[in-house]
């Protein structure tokens, strides 16, 4: 079963505030994507979070822990559902302004990765992450890869939706 936090303290409060703030931002920003695109961006980031965290934070690698327990807690699920997914959406939202030329999009990816590493450092201080054989420098590389994958995924979804035949017509 999903576990409750061992102690409701600073890391849970930090994640709740960040999750609430990011979700609010997603809701108040003017709509730029269709609902299908939005759902797919959310699903893709949920998938990435679940897979990447399980591979590198779970046994046997166990490079870091999230929240109070190495086990899967309800707050881990909250992070997957509200923090990672909203961050992915907001990243793609911003990307639409910097998609061309290539050097602008590259600078955008690097800037957002750096900003996310900054946020991760704050989260680390709030005991959201406990590193074992992980370092924040690895996170920078991971974020650049993850954000780049997000861009290609978004381009693929846009391409497929533009060329899709409407079902039942």
């Amino acid at each position, binding site marked *: 079963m999903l576990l409750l936090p061992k102690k409701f303290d600073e890391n849970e409060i930090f994640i709740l505030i960040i999750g609430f703030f990011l979700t609010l931002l997603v809701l108040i920003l003017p709509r730029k994507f269709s609902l299908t695109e939005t759902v797919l961006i959310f699903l893709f980031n949920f998938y990435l979070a679940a897979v990447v965290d399980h591979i590198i934070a*779970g046994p046997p690698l166990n490079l870091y822990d999230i929240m109070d327990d190495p086990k899967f807690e309800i707050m881990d699920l909250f992070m997957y559902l509200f923090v990672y997914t909203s961050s992915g959406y907001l990243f793609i939202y911003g990307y639409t302004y910097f998609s061309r030329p290539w050097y602008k999009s590259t600078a955008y990816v690097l800037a957002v990765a750096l900003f996310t590493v900054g946020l991760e450092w704050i989260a680390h201080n709030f005991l959201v992450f406990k590193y074992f054989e992980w370092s924040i420098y690895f996170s920078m590389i991971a974020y650049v890869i993850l954000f780049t994958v997000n861009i290609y995924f978004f381009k693929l979804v846009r391409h497929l939706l533009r060329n899709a035949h409407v*079902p039942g017509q």
Partner: protein
Amino acid sequence: MAFYLAVKIFISILLLGTLLFLKKKIYPIELIGSYLISASLFEILYNIISVNSAILKTSSAKLGLPLIQLDRLVVYPILTIWLLYFLRRQNIKYLQKYFIALLWSSMVVAIVFLNQHFEVAESQGWYAFIGYVEAFVMFVSFMGLSYIFHSIWVKEARQ
């Protein structure tokens, strides 16, 4: 274990190849959506079973993790997309659909037994009944979420 990994890679490539056939039958955007839903659900479900309940532990051997991840990222999700394909076909009777769903859940359970046989996973209280319960939970969650995704996409595409 190396032999098992080689076989599993071969099966995974075959299953990925079947997606080329499915691409003609299911819209690619739905294929992506269904894949993401099923892979995420399997990852979360097995995370709860292996880490929280600790009734099915992954081997700490070098090849343990890639074998388990091949199952969760390729084998289970593609089998689930095939299940979706058969359940949506109108020329298949309800009883046949029931047996196809039963076959799918038996395959999900059989893969865990195979993993135990090749020492990729270690059972610590896991048995077939639990496997069928997991498969049922997966089936209900997957069908519900993929139906919601399908409805959103179709509604928007028709506008």
